[in-house]
């Protein structure tokens, strides 16, 4: 599908915004650098906000599932400031590196883990007119970069000089490798349906039908089991229960994170929540319509296809969908027990991968039949 936007040299919406604003005497590369700086700032702020809100949401969701209140005190209304208090406390903690630990790797691991999520966020589109990088292979890039978090986790487990951490790291490596395959293959189903790797174009391909009935799951019903497989693989990728073996609380004390404290530990958690958000965004864009909702359909019907209002509605839609996905992940975490490592492997290789391949076959058949019927 062709977009109506003129091609840009860099594909960054912020640069597009800044270029006309820059005065004449500012060289082009400086405008570019400023745009990059602003983008990075926005991404950082976004990840921080996502992590903060997710921590609060997790604590409240887990509390109410467990018939209790959760944070109520800090900040007044349902303890919304608990994350700020936590952050402040963590920053003030002693920065320890355990004796015998590999200092360089120990310090580098959380940074690497967070950096990969930063990189993946570059493909996240807020709205059709507001994005950080216009990529034709958006989803490909996301999958590739999120798999580099494993390096950081294994580094953390190894560098901690603790047997429990080593266990966590080994499990994480095995788990991620096993579930990358069904993650990618199950995504092929909506990719076939929508016909594009780019997140922006995929979202546009689901426009119409009152904002709901052209979603990928309705365009191709094979997308529904594909979504289930994708969701399970996403849970395993982000180390969320029932696949939270790498940080299994009751078995390994804290898995690969055992020796981390203070702000380094919070980096791992920021990465976890940001990865959850990212996976939810991918699911929202490829299965559940992305920007499309009844609101956008109404706006489109009235001819509003660009501009600030449309952009805001799109942004709100996708963020809400993503946070619903995050909420679903949390709900699953507090319901299901943990799967044992060899069962994780069995599920990944013997159940999810063959089923995903089968679904790709069925999706291909459906697409051929649907196209043939249309013609």
């Amino acid at each position, binding site marked *: 599908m062709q977009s109506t936007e003129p091609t840009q040299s860099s594909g960054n919406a912020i640069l597009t915004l800044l270029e006309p604003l820059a005065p004449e005497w500012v060289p082009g590369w400086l405008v570019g650098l400023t745009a990059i700086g602003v983008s990075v700032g926005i991404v950082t702020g976004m990840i921080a906000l996502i992590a903060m809100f997710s921590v609060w949401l997790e604590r409240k969701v887990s509390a109410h599932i467990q018939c209790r209140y959760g944070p109520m005190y800090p900040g007044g209304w349902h303890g919304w400031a608990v994350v700020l208090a936590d952050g402040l406390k963590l920053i003030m903690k002693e920065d320890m590196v355990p004796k015998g630990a590999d200092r360089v790797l120990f310090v580098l691991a959380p940074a690497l883990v967070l950096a990969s999520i930063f990189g993946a966020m570059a493909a996240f589109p807020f709205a059709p007119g507001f994005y950080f990088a216009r990529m034709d292979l958006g989803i490909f890039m996301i999958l590739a970069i999120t798999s580099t978090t494993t390096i950081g986790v294994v580094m953390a487990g190894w560098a901690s000089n603790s047997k429990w951490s080593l266990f966590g790291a080994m499990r994480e490596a095995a788990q991620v490798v096993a579930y990358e395959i069904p993650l990618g293959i199950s995504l092929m189903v909506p990719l076939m349906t929508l016909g594009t790797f780019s997140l922006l174009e995929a979202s546009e391909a689901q426009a119409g039908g009152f904002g709901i009935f052209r979603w990928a799951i309705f365009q191709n019903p094979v997308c529904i089991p594909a979504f289930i497989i994708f969701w399970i693989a996403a849970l395993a990728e982000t180390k969320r229960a029932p696949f939270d073996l790498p940080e299994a609380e009751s078995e390994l004390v804290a898995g690969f994170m055992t020796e981390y404290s203070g702000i380094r530990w919070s980096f791992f958690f920021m990465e976890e929540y940001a990865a959850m958000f990212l996976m939810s965004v991918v699911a929202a864009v490829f299965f559940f319509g992305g920007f499309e909702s009844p609101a956008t359909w109404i706006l489109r019907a009235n001819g509003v296809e660009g501009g600030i209002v449309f952009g805001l509605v799109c942004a709100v839609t996708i963020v809400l969908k993503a946070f619903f996905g995050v909420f679903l992940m949390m709900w699953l975490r507090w319901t299901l*027990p943990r799967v044992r490592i060899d069962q994780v492997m069995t599920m990944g290789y013997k159940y999810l991968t063959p089923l995903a391949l089968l679904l790709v076959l069925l999706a291909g058949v459906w697409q051929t039949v649907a196209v043939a019927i249309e013609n």
Partner: protein
Amino acid sequence: MTIEETGQKGSIQLGTESRILPSGEREFMLDVATSDIELNMGPQHPATHGVMRLLIRTDGELVTGVQPHLGFLHRCAEKIGENVEWLQYLPYTDRYDYLAAMNNNLGYSLAVEKLMTGLEIPQRATHLRTICAELNRIASHLIAFGTYGLDIGAFTPFFYAFREREWIQALFEKICGARLTYSYIRIGGVFNDSPPGWLQEVERFCDVFEAKWQEYYDLLILNHIFVKRTANVGVIPPAMARDFALTGPMLRASGIDFDLRRDMPYMDYGEIYEAGAFQIPLGSGEKGTVGDCWDRIYVRMKEMIESLGIVRWCLGSIEDGPVIGDIPKVLRVPNGECYVGIENPRGELGHYLHSDGGKIAIRCRVRGPSFVNLAVLEDIMPGTLLGDSIAIVGSIDIVIGETDR
């Protein structure tokens, strides 16, 4: 061909040992040694149910050996029994299996009463004792269920179990004033009568509990992941159960039909069983093998329902009357020695008392069921994965207060 014949020279040293496999191929024994990791599932660990140290030797994730170290919670309970008077020892009995304190008090009181021949326990006292002991069995099994869920990774059933346990503890608080270490069942009867309205509240609890039990069952016990993690894990065959002198739900999960309440009845249990108020649940290998972890937790869940039957029977047949027998102010227990074993939620809790007619016991020996049940770990844990070992330890349902005393 041998290595010399091939003329290969290199840095990999192939061992000269080799053998011929049944298929005809030659298998070389490589000289690659990986050493086992020795892990300390130490005194401080979220999954060892107290302060117990498990020295685990693993080959990667596979456990090859285990050695439990005990004694971190030893408080010289038996020695104290030789130094305080008969009634003063009662609060110490609470504190061995602190999750089932009523049963501990009961065991001790029954043992002393056996020595004091001719002592009559009033009927109301017997019924109140039974109600309290069975409610405490439910509370104890609720903790077993909740913490087992925690070990396996399900964080929510723990909170639901504690919601019901709070109700039971509130009931106990109303009748004796304490929530964990009751010292309520004393020599000769019980300390004080139930306050007005207490029996009705127990009945209301019984009615509400069955629906909640079904929720726990659906949420955790029938959950596919839970079944996969506990079925066929830590199988204790019936012969091994008998050899290791296991008692309680561990024995019944292996299929052996033995329960002290029915086979060696004490208090009114014989009569209650004859009246059909409760059955003895057995493990049958429904989800895997007989005697696996799933069977053990299943037996515990079923026992909770059977306890409700016993409580209801007692509520139906309790009469008004005194709650304590004729005990002198200064208690001197007649000469003699006796052993009385009762069915604790964890197994057979035995008290061996030796009296010389004085105010203080000569010997007060306690057979803690968790201590005896724990011995089976060294035989069933090697060969399992690390995650399984947590499941096995949790299914034995130990309380370190009872293991160490």
